[in-house]
């Protein structure tokens, strides 16, 4: 798929169909029914014809997304599909390729989010307070950071974690975070 070719007739509905499939499968858009898609995009098509098209295109898109295909893999895959019995046309392949190029990042992000089932940090706020210590020595003021973390899981109500960090604790945290950073660097260097 080297050069951008002008989109052939029929490209728009197919592009719309792929969008609809992606919205339902990856972006959590409820209510995108077969009827809706057919009515909007292929009103002239017979229901069984449309269903066949929908099934075929869904299958192709899911294969591409599941393998997170790069351009080489995509070209090889789509070419193979055009040569298959009951496969796709060259025009359809072009539309699918363009769609994937434009939506790959967003779909991949959705797939990643769909696979995160533990708490994630949805938000984090902090402030520094001056805390008066001790009932005997009035003027000792220790700065502490008060951190509020919003932890949540997909589709569940958040939990708010409120923590106090004095300077020593912040230093401890920074040390751990540096260790993590080193690990990430080591990982990205070897892969």
């Amino acid at each position, binding site marked *: 798929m080297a050069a951008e070719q002008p989109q052939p007739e029929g490209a728009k509905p197919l592009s719309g169909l792929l969008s609809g499939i992606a919205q339902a499968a990856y972006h959590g858009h409820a209510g995108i029914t077969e009827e809706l898609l057919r009515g909007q995009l292929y009103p002239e098509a017979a229901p069984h014809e449309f269903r066949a098209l929908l099934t075929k295109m869904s299958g192709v898109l899911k294969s591409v997304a599941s393998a*997170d295909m790069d351009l080489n893999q995509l070209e090889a895959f789509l070419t193979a599909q055009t040569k298959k019995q009951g496969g796709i046309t060259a025009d359809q392949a072009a539309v699918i390729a363009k769609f994937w190029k434009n939506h790959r990042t967003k779909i991949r992000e959705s797939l*990643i989010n769909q*696979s995160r089932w*533990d708490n*994630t*940090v949805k938000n984090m706020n902090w402030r520094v307070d001056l*805390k008066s210590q001790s009932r005997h020595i009035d003027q000792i003021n220790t700065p502490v950071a008060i951190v509020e973390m919003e932890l949540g899981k997909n589709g569940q109500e958040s939990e708010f974690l409120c923590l106090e960090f004095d300077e020593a604790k912040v230093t401890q*945290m920074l040390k751990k975070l540096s260790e993590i950073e080193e690990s990430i660097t080591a990982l990205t260097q070897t892969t």
Partner: protein
Amino acid sequence: MLPKHAVQVIRHIWNEQGKSISMSEDARNMATVGQIIDIQWKLGMAVSSDSCRSLKYPYVTMTLKVAEPSGQIKNKSFEMTIPQFQDFFRHFKEMAAVLETV
């Protein structure tokens, strides 16, 4: 009306302790602020899932051991993508900078 000695005790305690309550934005927050006892971390790589055979993304998991004011110790764990981790790290660096200058 409170007896005089009660007023004196209240005034004395308020002078000693009052600042830490009034300086916090919300006195109620004080009661729910936890202390960190331990920090653990893990760097993982998501390889595959049922909806995506080629996930391939690294993620950081952290577990904080927190002592709540009630005395209860709880483990709180959470996961971060690499960009989220970098944000998290940045927050703490900023915190350290502010704590130093206060």
